């Protein structure tokens, strides 16, 4: 099997609490990997470990064969945090411009990229609006646009579609699929089951342990379930 774009084998402890327990994950380019699990199960911590903000207590994360954290790998990763990390007193355009420069988008391409990503999230007419006047869903979409700015090879998205209405969510998923077919690896965490169905592969996480990995079809077959939700429950994953 060829080496994945992301190879992780990690344990993470905060003090005496174990957040992630020997999570072993191999992700390939050109797939959408859905991370499924109740809140508090360790999804966000795993995403942060993969993008290099957090570091494993045991084990390591390799992105494109390079041990994280690594600055040149961070250039290839687009990260969208669960909280909207935006500067409220600035306009959408100023936020995008700032992160574009930080992520290494060339000056002369910045304007074009900004308009492109904002069209993807239907915000192209809100560029000059202050972010503090945005609704929750608009902020979410702007965060997503920022993660896409520098054409990353790997997208790590922590609940990207929370608070986004269904028709726009369709559009965003269509974008994900297009990016995937261009060879981008996308990892999303989600609660929404119909989104899970659209993933190439799913990882189910419960109490810091990866309890199952496979395509949605495989997982349903293994457990004789009709829905992903059922499959998740029969793997021992309990909701809240």
């Amino acid at each position, binding site marked *: 099997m060829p080496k994945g774009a992301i190879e992780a084998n990690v344990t993470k402890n905060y003090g005496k609490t174990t957040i992630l327990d020997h999570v072993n994950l191999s992700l390939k380019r050109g797939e959408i990997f859905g991370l499924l699990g109740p809140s508090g199960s360790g999804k966000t911590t795993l995403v*942060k470990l993969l*993008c*290099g*903000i957090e*570091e494993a207590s045991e084990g390591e994360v390799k992105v494109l064969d390079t041990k994280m*954290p*690594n*600055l*040149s790998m*961070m*250039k290839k*990763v687009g*990260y969208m*945090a669960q*909280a*909207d*990390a*935006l*500067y*409220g*007193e*600035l306009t959408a355009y*100023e936020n995008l*411009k*700032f*992160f574009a*420069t*930080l*992520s*290494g988008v060339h000056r002369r391409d910045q304007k074009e990229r900004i308009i492109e990503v904002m069209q993807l999230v239907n915000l192209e007419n809100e560029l000059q609006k*202050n972010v503090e006047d945005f609704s929750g869903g608009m902020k979410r979409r702007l965060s997503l646009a*920022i993660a896409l700015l520098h054409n990353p090879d790997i997208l790590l998205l922590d609940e990207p579609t929370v608070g986004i209405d269904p028709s726009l969510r369709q559009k965003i998923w269509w974008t994900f699929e297009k990016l995937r077919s261009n060879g981008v690896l996308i990892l999303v965490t989600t609660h929404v089951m119909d989104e899970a169905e659209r993933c190439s592969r799913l990882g189910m996480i419960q109490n810091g342990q990866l309890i199952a990995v496979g395509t949605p079809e495989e997982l349903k077959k293994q457990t004789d379930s009709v829905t992903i939700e059922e499959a998740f429950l029969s793997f021992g994953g309990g909701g809240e």
Partner: protein
Amino acid sequence: MRIIAVVIRILRQFISDKRTMALMIVAPIIILTMLSLVFNGEDLELKLGVRNAPESIVEQMEKHANVKPIASDEPIESTLKNDYDAVIDFGNGAKKLYLEGSDPSINRAVINMVQSSSMGKNQEVDLEVSYLFGSNDMSSFDHFGPVLVGFFIFFFVFLIAGVSFLRERTQGTLERVLATPIKRWELVTGYVIGFGLFTMLQSAIIALYSIYVIDLMMEGAFLYVLLITLMLALSALTLGTLLSSFAKNELQMIQFIPLVVVPQIFFSGLFNLDTISNYLSWIGPLTPLYYGADALRSVMIKGQGLTDIWIDLLVLLGFSIVFMILNIYALKKHRRI
């Protein structure tokens, strides 16, 4: 390039956050104006009673104070209670000074006055008072004004820089920024330059206002005042951003003020440094305001120049560099590389 992006973003935030900008410039101006009015009020007029005094001395003293002869059989105690600041008894050849004593500044003024007027007692010499620094119309506000200019710049820069770096953490943008390939030193440098540019404007306005509107005594060159306030502001800015790493929220940041900022006043020369207990006096040289205030007094009161303040400036720069390095190190908590 990334540094410039941080700088531009900070300046844009300032421009769109008018209230913070106003706070940093207008608040110090208002406070300094109020203080100047409080301390530049009318001259203190001493009220003295004299007993058995020769006519010539009474005349001499009347130039400086409200002098009233008192009958020699009247008890001194009741006179003092009767709103007199002091009573001088010239009886039996020896001079005796009875002070009311509740206000030390009045006590000093009385003693000074009596000493100076008795100098010309027997010889008809004109009293000529000369001052090494300042002059006889130097008010007490001229004396501690330079310290306060430095203090308020330090205070507001510390607070605003600290809170805005802290907010970067609480609103999650610090994490988001650190998920990009920016280096920790680039972020800290960007902060210093961005705030530094704004602080330059702030210091210039406050210094100009204090000198030309409040009419604070100004013997030296304005350029030096700018240089000192800028260095002082830099140390406040780097200290504020550093300490914000140890605060969880804005309230905790504000709790640093009585601990870190206010005690600096004690060692800034506002109070006589020689009288500070030995248990505490070592703290002074560890505080930035100690050097900033010293340099400001040198320039504004004594009219000195670069040769007298370069050490202060260098120490302030040293503080800033140390705080910056510590801050770059403190950011390791959020990303190791």
